[in-house]
């Protein structure tokens, strides 16, 4: 998150300042890609590209703070992911293709989590084993940094349902770690 400087960066980007836009891009892109690797694993790069094209085109008309900006961007990404036909039901059957650690972690041998530094890709693979709505909500809450209400608006659920789904997802993750012996 950029924080207090976000308003200035956004205004500069809306006036055509490439450096300011690059700042916005670098701040959001990792979270965007990770989110898309969970909700549209087979097309994350393509969907990210489409999302940025749409963001660039509509950026001059955007108004709002940083959370609103992220909420807007992730809303676009979610729609593009749906358009790409990567339904959430397929997430658990389509492996992340480009990571050996993913292969290891999608197997029951999750004990590697305790033996080596946890990689982002490994955790993404672990998240992908959760029910789709729980995984998406955790990504929006934790990776995109959005609040419960913003996430609720994006996924079309009530804030209470979003909170419950996030809690369940985290408990599942804790259970996976526990069974793998990472935690007592």
């Amino acid at each position, binding site marked *: 998150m950029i924080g207090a400087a976000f308003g200035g960066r956004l205004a500069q980007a809306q006036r055509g300042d490439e450096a300011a836009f690059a700042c916005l891009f670098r701040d959001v892109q990792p979270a965007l890609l990770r989110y898309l690797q969970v909700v549209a694993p087979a097309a994350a790069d393509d969907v*990210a590209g489409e999302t940025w094209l749409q963001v660039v085109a509509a950026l001059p008309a955007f108004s709002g703070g940083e959370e609103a900006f992220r909420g807007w961007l992730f809303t676009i990404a979610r729609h593009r992911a749906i358009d790409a036909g990567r339904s959430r039901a397929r997430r658990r059957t389509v492996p992340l293709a480009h990571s050996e650690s993913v292969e290891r972690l999608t197997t029951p041998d999750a004990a590697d989590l305790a033996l080596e530094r946890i990689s982002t890709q490994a955790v993404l693979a672990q998240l992908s084993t959760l029910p789709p709505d729980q995984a998406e909500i955790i990504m929006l809450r934790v990776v995109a940094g959005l609040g419960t209400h913003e996430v609720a608006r994006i996924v079309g659920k009530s804030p209470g349902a979003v909170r419950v789904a996030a809690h369940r997802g985290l408990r599942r993750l804790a259970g996976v770690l526990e069974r793998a012996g990472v935690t007592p």
Partner: protein
Amino acid sequence: MTGPGASSDEMHGFPFPGRAGHELNESLLDALLNGQSLPPDAPEQACAVAEMLASLAGPAGPCELAGEAAALSAFARSASPAGTSPAAGWPSRRRLAWLPAAATGRLAAALLAVATGLGGAAAAYAGALPGPIQNFAHHMIGAPARRPAAPPALTKRHPPARQCAAYEHANAHGSARAPAKGSAQLAKTPGGAAKIDAYCPAANPDGRPAPAHPAGHPGGAKARGHGKRHRNVRGHGAGGSLGHGNGPAQANGHAQANGHAKQKTPGSSNDNSTSGINRRAPSFRSPDSGPVLNSGRPRHAVDFGHSHLGHGLRPALGSQ
């Protein structure tokens, strides 16, 4: 069975309620979701989950910013005044890798539309469109009027005729630029700028047909006009009461023939009897391009004018 503080609703459906997550109460879970620091007495389970989530939100890896150049390129294209769409200037390989087929299709459609527009405009100014369409373009964008079926040779040797035509055409159509250009050219002719109106009776605003041979018409121009007139002399008779030049124009079915031909300088009226093809937008035509068929202009240039839709589009489509 349930963890401290966890409601039965939250635990409903949890697959391993007795074995997993039982130490994670709601406040701990909310702290994890909000990225807050855990209390010192937080269970180890919570710490493990916190480590996972911290890894999820960790710093960008080198591959994750690989698309920055493409995004900046799209942004620069969008921000530039000349940019038509963010995708238009996407670097080729990167763009093809990023753009979906639908976006590529839209880009092709946009290029097609531009090519069509340019080709159509070029054809209109070259007078190469079918008659009714050419007339429409004539009135809408100031393109030359419909070309006669068999235009007589006009000519570089009669620049005053074309200049008068441009001058009066601009007056008739309200263009601010063309009159200035026409006037500048005509000012070089004998008599100077002050006599343009007299030199080109077309400038009279009442729309009445100009006298065939108005008094005071510059003799030089008249003599030049008659120097070629024998070729079109039949036009005088056909034109009837409207005088020189109307005959051929009417014969060619130009709806505005009377309105325009009546304004021609009598000395060049034989040329201007086909003046529909002389009234061309200056910026789209080379000075000697009026007599397209007879000026010896390179064939390919003529073909471009005639290509209107067909030739204009093929290169654009072929490049896709």
